[in-house]
């Protein structure tokens, strides 16, 4: 079970960051927009630094539970 959970969390994080496939294939049209592409779009096309930063923080917030869990496991192993 432990292996599956580790792989699952790793893949989840990778998918949350996926950007290049979405940009190349659809660029978010036809309701396929994802967070990472949305952030890139707001930052470098609309030059809206506020919205871009906000979406980066949302990505971080989504990832924080996994981060806390990983750190907790690492400290447990270090003891």
């Amino acid at each position, binding site marked *: 079970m432990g292996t599956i959970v580790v792989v699952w969390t790793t893949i989840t994080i990778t998918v949350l960051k996926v*950007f290049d496939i979405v*940009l190349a294939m659809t660029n978010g049209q036809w309701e396929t927009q994802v967070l*990472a592409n949305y952030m*890139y779009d707001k*930052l470098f096309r609309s030059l809206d630094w506020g919205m871009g*930063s906000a979406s980066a923080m949302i*990505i971080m917030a989504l990832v924080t539970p996994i*981060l806390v869990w990983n750190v907790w496991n690492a*400290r447990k192993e*270090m003891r």
Partner: protein
Amino acid sequence: MDSIAGKKPALMWAVQISVVALVLLWVVPTFGLLVSSFRTGDQIVSSGWWQALTEQEQQLSPIRVEGAEVALDGAFVIEGRLFTSATDLLAWGTSSVQPNAYAPGDTADLGEGVTLTVQADGAYVLTSPVTTIGTRLPRIFATASTPPEFTTRNYTNVIASPMAGQSIGQAFLNTLTVAIPATVIPILVAAFAAYALAWMDFPGRALLVALIVGLLVVPLQLALIPLLQFHNWIGIGKGYLGIWMAHTGFGLPLAIYLLRNYMVGLPRDIIENAKVDGATDFQIFTRIILPLSFPALASFAIFQFLWVWNDLLVALIFLGTGNDQQVLTGNLVNLMGSRGGDWEILSASAFVSIAVPLLVFFSMQRFLVRGLLAGSVK
């Protein structure tokens, strides 16, 4: 597998079959792309890659009758050929509404005594009772069958000539310029850090390791804006130095994590004996730890090289597009946008861009598995 108690043969068959299915799912489209990259543009449009070896049936664009007019038996005759290469005519017509109205060898009556005959090998004869000089000659719509044609022209086009900004050859060199330092620098930094976190005792070591593990998970989008502003502020701006530093920073948590895990698994006795013999930490590091850690270093190098090679986001932000520093992934995205219908160019570019990662992966594959697994088994 036989020694594992309780493993049912049916389960193993299911595993084998699903592995084969997954491999086929991935390999078949890639093979199709490879075949497409060797075909000409017309043939890709007319049939799929699985029909690449058969005769291609294709509707040609209309060809206007032309030739020298000869006076013959009181009528005016124009003779010519439709095709220059060996082609079989399947059907032909004189109007776009009915492009396949006639079979090869038929004679079409175009009105006012004008007749047109087209043979199966493309030779046509136009006969008219009055002179045709100064009149508009009819067009022939032909459906022809051409033999399969394979060419390496796509590859030479893609590598040499500029498309959508710059040639793939230049983008290839740019990507190498980005990838090689972005692999070497993290290894240099992380090897020292991993040794310290594994074998040197200092207060806060546990906290640092936990911090590194936490940083593994942080998405890199979080750091992009501040990092870019920082680069502009200290004057680096967009360029190779910025992207090397960025990739180093993003790759360090994984590097330190992998290398530390591996170094912790090294035998304690050797290091203890070396300390007893009076070796300094630096000597232990260079003479004992580094040579022993080679599988882990190699496996991380492969990871990092492949990740940097495939990366698009960091390259777009720290290098920009449409200039002479553009990397391969950016070039491919531009190609898809500007020449998305030219399949022969897209497929050839795709294969040029995956040639190097495949080479790296297959040549260093044994290090990858050994380095990864050695660190995880404690």
